[in-house]
């Protein structure tokens, strides 16, 4: 009765899981089937993992049939074997499966062949798929081993994945499927936008939903302010191509001139069939300071259009290049590429393509990205191509792509749609109808998938239907149904490293390196001008790895740890004193050479000099001798006795090694703390982190080392409010920022353990406050609860 169905998208073995779970209540059946399932699952798991990136055809009928069998298998086996599960657990399983499946579906790279559509997992999709696949198998094994009781949970999770994958991939499939149809398109509009000011990071994928397939290029860090919009609009109609270029200076950018040239054909700047033309525009600020603190980037864009033969339904192509130069980049970033798209036969059908270049100022840097979208739309009845206009540079919703067509309705479907009363005849935007079409198809598929799930669950337990409906709607509604992300034309190798003068001292000092050309800065490293920089990879050496490891000693720990405190925890000193040689390796901190503006450390940082002085036995003897003289004078000790005592001080000092050792330990700990402080200060100061936060971070970083280290993810979690904002400025992921700024290393202690351990140490410790009151009764300290304003806030105690 082994019905095993392998879902190539979800990677699940639905019935296998059900069988395994079902046998939990039947020992004999369990023994036989469990062994079979384990062997089968392992074998298929390995087989499936080897085929993670294999391109496979998309067969909708087969997929829906398989989904039906999968659900039926789950329901039947649950009824036969009598396995039941918590309703809420099942709902969450399906919901989680939908989310995971949607991610997998979105991660599919869908391409159209001559007759069918093919899908291949992206790296992200494969990773999610692999993790969920292995996780499900582990969960199944854990269930069989009696570690957890999952019931039908994993089976319904698998169902959710299947449905989610179908939903997630639908947009890509739809787009790809259109390209294998005879396209009825003969008009194209290309908008090339340069420097649209926006404040966010990459363009939201959802913003391109209405435009069909879209491709996002890598983001890059540059200098300069938003320089404005460049738009190149390309419209094909009646066999000719119209190309217009325009530019909009950024708001407040008054110092620049924006020459504009268009060079092809005769006025009115049209291209006939098989003609090629080029449009170009550039910005050369006459007053660079007006753009950004003297950086004054110059930008040039060239849009080359080859109107191969629109009327015969062949293709049009656009070549573009962009170079953004300024006076501080040794290797000016540049990018170029080309894209071709089918326009189909006819002279008045709609197709829309959009290029969008954006330049974003981010503090001392600027981010540049490009977006390419295009869509063939259903044939509109209008006979004119979309009017060429410029996108609004003042669009408040800066995460949305500038729209290529004036008056274009919003992506949610505006009133211009036929359903909303708009006229399809006068609708100038072919994308509007395409969007409506997408919505209908999508809604139908979602409803069908949801109905299948609801019916199946209803067979198991009618009470589950309504909660599940809510969960399903919630998931499907929040999951943006977007198309695939690809970078087919971008030559990212041209921009591997961006060099920035972060501290405005006229010397390039920081390099942002995108090693894998994925648009995300992988590391930030000090910059020194190389003799022959590796432009291809942007590699200029590695970023300093200042990881002091699990330093478990900190100034103050030694003299304050009460006797009897547990050996592990917050404030317990390391039984093995810090090894200054290995813990503080001068070779780890080459950043000194690239951060000349770092303020010198205090002369006596945390009493370091004091500790250093004490560490000298000779000095200790000398000072003790001075104390002896003072005491002898006070008491009236004869000189002879005083000299005999003085003679004994030397052997006493030599015997009392603990004085020196304690002092040395304190000195080393102070050195370590100072090193941490200096390094953190260096890293944060150049990032513009406010002084107060820098101090707090120094403390946190010291504490992380002090407590013996915590897991990196815990540090990331702690520092999210800081790393998030820094990451936004730098275009880096927050966890990358955390890794760079807080290299606490790999430790096993988790955050929860840290809280509990710390609390145990505090609560289990002696009543030190009582000792203070008893033994040092003259001390102040009953300030009441009215001083919190001095403790928290800008005038926080400690800096006063």
């Amino acid at each position, binding site marked *: 009765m082994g019905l095993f169905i392998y879902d190539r998208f979800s990677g699940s073995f639905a019935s296998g899981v059900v069988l395994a779970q079902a046998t939990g209540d039947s020992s004999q059946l369990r023994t036989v089937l469990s062994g079979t399932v384990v062997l089968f699952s392992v074998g298929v798991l390995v087989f499936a993992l080897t085929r993670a990136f294999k391109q496979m055809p998309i067969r909708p009928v087969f997929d829906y049939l398989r989904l039906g069998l999968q659900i039926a298998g789950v329901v039947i086996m649950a009824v036969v074997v009598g396995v039941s599960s918590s309703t809420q657990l099942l709902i969450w399983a399906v919901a989680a499966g939908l989310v995971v499946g949607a991610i997998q579906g979105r991660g599919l790279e869908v391409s159209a062949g001559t007759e069918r559509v093919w899908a291949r997992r992206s790296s992200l999709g494969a990773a999610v798929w692999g993790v969920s696949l292995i996780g499900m198998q582990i969960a199944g094994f854990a269930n069989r081993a009696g570690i957890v009781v999952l019931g039908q949970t994993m089976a319904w999770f698998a169902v959710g994945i299947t449905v989610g994958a179908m939903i997630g991939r639908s947009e890509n499939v739809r787009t790809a499927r259109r390209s294998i149809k005879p396209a009825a398109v003969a008009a194209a509009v290309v908008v090339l936008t340069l420097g649209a000011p926006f404040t966010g990071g990459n363009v939201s994928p959802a913003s391109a939903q209405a435009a069909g397939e879209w491709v996002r290029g890598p983001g890059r860090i540059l200098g300069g302010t938003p320089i404005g919009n460049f738009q190149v609009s390309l419209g094909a109609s009646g066999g000719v191509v119209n190309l217009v270029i325009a530019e909009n200076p950024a708001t407040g950018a008054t110092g620049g001139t924006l020459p504009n040239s268009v060079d092809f054909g005769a006025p009115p700047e049209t291209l006939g069939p098989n003609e090629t033309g080029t449009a170009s525009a550039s910005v050369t600020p006459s007053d660079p300071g007006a753009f950004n603190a003297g950086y004054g980037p110059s930008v040039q864009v060239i849009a080359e259009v080859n109107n191969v033969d629109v009327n015969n339904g062949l293709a049009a192509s656009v070549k573009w290049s962009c170079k953004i130069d300024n006076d501080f980049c040794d290797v000016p970033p540049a990018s170029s590429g080309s894209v071709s798209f089918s326009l189909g036969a006819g002279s008045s059908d709609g197709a829309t393509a959009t290029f969008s270049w954006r330049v974003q100022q981010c503090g001392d840097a600027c981010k540049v990205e490009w977006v390419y979208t295009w869509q063939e739309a259903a044939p509109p009845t209008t006979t004119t191509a979309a009017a060429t206009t410029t996108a609004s540079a003042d669009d408040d919703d800066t995460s949305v792509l500038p729209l290529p067509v004036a008056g274009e309705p919003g992506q949610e479907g505006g009133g211009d749609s036929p359903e909303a009363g708009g006229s399809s005849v006068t609708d100038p935007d072919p994308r509007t109808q395409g969007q409506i079409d997408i919505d209908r198809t999508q809604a139908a598929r979602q409803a069908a998938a949801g109905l299948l799930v609801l019916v199946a669950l209803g067979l198991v337990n009618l009470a589950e239907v309504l909660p599940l409906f809510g969960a399903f709607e919630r998931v499907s509604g929040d999951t943006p149904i977007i198309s695939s992300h690809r970078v087919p034309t971008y030559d990212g190798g041209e921009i591997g490293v961006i060099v920035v003068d972060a501290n405005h001292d006229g010397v390039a000092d920081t390099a942002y390196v995108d090693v894998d050309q994925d648009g995300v800065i992988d590391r930030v490293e000090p910059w020194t001008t190389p003799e022959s920089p590796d432009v291809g990879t942007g590699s200029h050496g590695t970023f300093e790895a200042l990881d002091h490891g699990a330093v478990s000693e900190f100034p103050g720990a030694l003299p304050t740890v009460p006797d009897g405190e547990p050996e592990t925890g917050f404030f317990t000193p390391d039984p093995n004193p810090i090894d200054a040689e290995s813990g503080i390796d001068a070779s780890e901190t080459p950043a000194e050479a690239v951060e000349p503006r770092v303020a010198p450390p205090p002369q006596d940082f945390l009493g370091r000099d004091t500790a250093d002085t004490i560490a000298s036995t000779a000095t200790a003897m000398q000072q003790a001798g001075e104390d002896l003289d003072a005491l002898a004078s006070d008491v009236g000790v004869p000189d002879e006795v005083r000299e005999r005592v003085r003679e004994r001080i030397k052997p006493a000092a030599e015997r009392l090694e603990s004085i020196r050792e304690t002092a040395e330990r304190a000195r080393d700990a102070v050195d370590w703390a100072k090193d941490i402080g200096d390094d953190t200060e260096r890293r944060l100061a150049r990032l513009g982190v406010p002084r107060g936060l820098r101090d707090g971070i120094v403390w946190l970083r010291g504490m992380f080392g002090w407590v013996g280290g915590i897991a990196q993810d815990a540090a990331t979690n702690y520092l999210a409010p800081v790393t998030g904002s820094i990451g936004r400025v730098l275009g880096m992921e927050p966890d990358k920022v955390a890794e760079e700024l807080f290299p606490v290393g790999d430790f096993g202690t988790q955050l929860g353990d840290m809280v509990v351990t710390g609390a145990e140490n505090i609560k289990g410790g002696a009543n030190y406050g009582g000792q203070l009151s008893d033994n040092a009764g003259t001390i102040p300290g009953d300030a009441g609860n009215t001083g919190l304003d001095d403790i*928290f806030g800008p005038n926080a105690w400690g800096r006063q």
Partner: protein
Amino acid sequence: MSFIENDQELMAKVAAARSPVEKLALLATSALEGEAAMRNAVGMERAEIALRVGATHAVMTSETDNDEAAEDTVLWAGRCVDVARHFDAAIVYYVPRAAALCACVLDHLDSGLQALVMDTMGGWMHGYGKALERVASQTADADLVALVALAAQATEGADDLASQARERASAGYRAVGDFDTFLAASSDDKGLVGKFDPNMPGLAARLAKDGE
């Protein structure tokens, strides 16, 4: 039994609790007891109580994922520092512990409060560093005077000098909150020796021998 005595056993009770509800009840009850004890306490015991109540709220934050408890943790940690900040030994002992409690719950605070707490901990670091330096210096001074006391007590005819030095060292240890050494130095000579090297009993006698 006082709140502090109860609190010293609280974590064991929490660990033995059989359900999250029981744990929460224990913690909440302890927090209320701590608040009541705080109203009646005087002196540095207020810092001790505030720190323990803060730790209770930190555990509640961790156990129940309760953001309100996280804010209470920060509040009680601040009260602890508010009391302790007037005495160097108390600063050195309580401030890092209070700051650690704040750090433990940092991710449960909203972004505005997170920034405030981070900034506050920077100030605490400054105060802690200054207090630590003073305590280290005073401890070093006490150690050197204790060295004189040890040398003097092994010298015939220097009893008065030894006694005077021991008293001064003892006072120094008390000032920095090193009460173990303070009590040892106050009681007898061996205690003072033991402070420096507990593995060398009879050090004073050997010192006397070396000096001959």
